[in-house]
């Protein structure tokens, strides 16, 4: 089909590579590809860890596991469309009285002391996280690769923090920094899906929200599959919480995490339905992704040939990921865990 000027009522002509040329020579296609990257980055950055954290929490709490598990699974019960509509019409109300905006503006009303406390706690938490990562980096028993990754993340976080401080200091000198900390919150009412700058973020959030519960199931099962003895041994060796996460939990989940990561990237590139429902690609095409553009080309403009050509190009771009996925999958073996016996 990609080689034809395809017409749905028949009479399609063979046009060679013209569809591909047309697809590639369009500037829009590349812009949308970049935006797709943005979408993938946001959704991976924010959403990938969510199910894992949720699964860990659900595993650790002593009581009410099943109840919470069911609650978090709720979004999967209804069709995805409904969730999106809920967010779009209900939570993303751009008036100051909308649910999310009211919440955001509610922070502004907090007294100075509480606001300052919250800010400082957040700042300290960020500092602590970075410090922990640096500690990991210089730790002798980490593998070099792990050390490099930890170091990079720590460096990025540190740069961010310093940049923030520098920005504040430039705005008002040293008192500017303290002033920024000891003051009320100053959030503005959000435009949500009508804000071209942040629209991608707002599109991603509902997906993460809805995906955390169902996504955590597999991690839950995996966590239950980790033998208790490993934790006990770690305990005996005097490992703290952090060490147990890094040296018992992560290695056990590694294969699963890698596979899911690759899968999430591929899925992110293919995403189009949810964007279509939320914004239809707007405002000003700020949320148009390649997947959606293909869809528009095929079903709105009826350029089936070009659409298919683009799909092929995208498939080729994703081929690397797909191949990686397959290669890893080949190296793995699958087993399933008898969950229920372990919970007792």
């Amino acid at each position: 089909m990609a080689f034809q000027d395809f017409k749905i009522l028949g009479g399609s002509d063979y046009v060679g590579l013209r569809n591909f040329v047309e697809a590639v020579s369009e500037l829009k296609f590349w812009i949308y590809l970049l935006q797709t990257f943005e979408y993938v980055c946001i959704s991976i950055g924010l959403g990938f860890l969510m199910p894992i954290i949720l699964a860990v929490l659900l595993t650790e709490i002593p009581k009410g596991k099943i109840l919470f598990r069911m609650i978090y699974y709720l979004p999967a019960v209804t069709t995805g469309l409904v969730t999106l509509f809920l967010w779009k019409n209900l939570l993303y109300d751009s008036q100051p009285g909308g649910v999310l905006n009211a919440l955001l503006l509610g922070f502004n009303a907090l007294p100075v002391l509480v606001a300052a406390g919250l800010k400082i706690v957040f700042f300290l938490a960020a500092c602590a996280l970075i410090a922990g990562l640096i500690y990991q980096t210089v730790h002798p028993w980490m593998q070099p690769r792990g050390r490099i990754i930890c170091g990079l993340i720590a460096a990025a976080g540190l740069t961010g923090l310093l940049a923030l401080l520098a920005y504040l200091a430039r705005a008002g000198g040293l008192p500017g920094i303290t002033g920024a900390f000891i003051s009320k919150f100053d959030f503005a009412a959000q435009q949500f899906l009508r804000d071209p700058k942040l629209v991608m973020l707002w599109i991603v959030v509902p997906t993460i929200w809805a995906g955390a519960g169902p996504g955590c199931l597999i991690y839950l099962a995996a966590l239950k599959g980790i033998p208790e003895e490993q934790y006990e041994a770690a305990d005996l060796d005097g490992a703290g919480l952090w060490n147990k996460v890094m040296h018992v939990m992560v290695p056990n989940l590694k294969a699963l995490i890698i596979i899911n990561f690759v899968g999430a990237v591929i899925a992110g590139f293919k995403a189009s339905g949810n964007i279509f429902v939320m914004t239809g690609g707007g405002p000003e095409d700020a949320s148009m992704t390649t997947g959606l553009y293909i869809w528009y080309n095929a079903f709105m403009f009826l350029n089936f040939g070009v659409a298919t050509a683009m799909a092929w190009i995208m498939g080729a771009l994703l081929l690397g990921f797909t191949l990686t996925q397959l290669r890893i999958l080949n190296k793995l073996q699958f087993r399933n865990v008898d969950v229920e016996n372990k919970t007792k």
Partner: protein
Amino acid sequence: MSLVSQVGRKSWGVRLLFGGMYALLLLGALTMVYPFLLMVTMSTTNRADCQEFRIIPRYWLDDGALFKKYLLEAMPSWSQIHAQADLTVTPLATWFGMDHWFTTFDIKISDLDSIIKMPRENCRARARDLWDFIRNACPAEFKMPAFIVDSDSMFFIQDDYVSFLKGKYGSLEEVNRVYGDNAATWDEIGMVIEPAHRALADTPRVRDWRGFIEKRAPERTGLFDADMLVYVATRGLSLPSGYNGSRDKNGIIVRSLITYDDLATGKLGTNVLMKFMRSQALGRYLSVDIVKAESAWKDYLRVNKCDEQMPLKERVPQDEYLAGRWNHFIATVCPLEAISMRRPEDAWRPFLAGRYKSIEDLNKAWGSDYRAFNEVRLPYAAFHYDVFLGIKKELRRSYLVHNFKTVFNFIAIHGSALRVTVIYIILLIAGTLTINPLAAYAMSRFRLQESHHILLFLLATMAFPGEVLMIPNFLQIKSFPIGAFGLVLAAMLLFYFLFRSLRRRLSLLLSATVALVLVGCLAGWFVPRLAEHFQINTSVTLMNTFWALVLPGLANGYGIFLLKGFFDSLPPELYEAGLIDGASEMRMFWQITIPLCKPIMAVMVLGAFGAAYGAFMHAFLICQDPQMWTLMVFLYEFQQNHSVSLVMASLVMAAVPTLLVFVFCQNIILRGIVIPTFK
């Protein structure tokens, strides 16, 4: 289980940690539950309050809110006779004297206090009087349908009307015969719309409609309200300085309390009266004083070159041409003093005067301060409040379940959706359970060198956006190449035969090639010619069949892949033992492999269930015949023409099966999850 070690669980640090975890989880759970609770509660609302987005709709607890809901449905339908868009709550505004009511959102519950706080016996007396009036003394021409606004309402008038007709005629054929109609369903016998400026001819249909309105309970009957027309007409005008009407507590004149009496007695000025009578009043309710207008009518006929013998009627004539002339006469040259408007008050006031001997008696019973009977207005608000109090409990209960009932009835009436969905689910589950395991088994048991590539090919299908696959899928189903399908089958059989019988002499690859070449020749040259010669169509359409629904989802690349991995991990000793015992491949498949893989099969079943139950786009494209619609397509259609609340109710109901499946099968789901680990 134990990132947090078992030892030292009671220490404060650990407790704090657990506290934090619970806080986080609770916060998350709140965001999960809130929208869904909202969905559930919204499905108990209706047009009146679905936009409020309250987790507990006000009417659950608050009588005022319930009354508001009821009022919005009890309004007479002005849209029937007066095509003016802003009439949504205008009648209510004149009942309560509230100038700021324009839409349902403007109605504050505290606005209703004037009635809710009224002493019970006064309210009762007013309501009783109006009830008796409507039942016994009100002329039929002023009665109009009420409870007509919303077709999703449980009071929707059409349902009453249909049951009235059923009671009268028994069968639809009879109705069609009498009316000279050919309605296919009861609902197609529409309600009669009385035109604003003309009286309808006395056909059986109109007679039935009027009889129906006449027979309805007074609380379900609306009355023509001239005061409301006056309110609409004078809303934008400035009032003469001498006018002295009802004022609110700030001393501003309440516009919605300006009555027709004020207008007719000239308190608002002649210009306003003229404009009202000439262009805004409804011809159906106007009457002309024949004596006063006689000479003007003669002039009118002469100027307009009409038949001069045409008599002047007091009320609008039935004949369309005459009615047109009559209305035109009023709108142009009829002397103002000859025109007046008929309204229920003309009968209402004498009725009251007969019931209460003096105005003091009436004021005592009503708790009002009228000076004369010709001031007394119709107490609509009190009347409806009284009715409302009588049915309050029942009303609240029916509001709670009404939407669900409607959805259920809708599905039950169109029963094929449920049947199709169930069959579809069963077929898809059966299909997934045979095709995928067989394919995976073949690849797992007989380690072909190519099986890796086959898997790769299967998985590659996942790399394309699903939307793009939709077109080829659709085209293929539209004209399914059954001939080609048969050829492939033939090729496989031939290959099997060759491989079996000539095993010694031909290698696997060779026999495959031979089979392919033979069939290729057959396909490329022989069959098309044959088909052409015998006029056989080599493709059939699968549209609107279960084949179309099931076929595209049968084989699932990822499922096959998972199963293969799973089968691979089974110990080969099992099969060796089976071979030694002389079991055939099929027997080993059914008795060794499948029982060992129950958990993952269960997950695949659940997946198939979810896919079949939720399938929308595909089912929508493929099965356009309503007889083959699945539940989801059906709900989609339902959503197209029903209100938000009903849509929510339908979604809640659609979520029930999936929720049940998860609640009862979550252990199966969890047990069937396969976790990859490095070999």
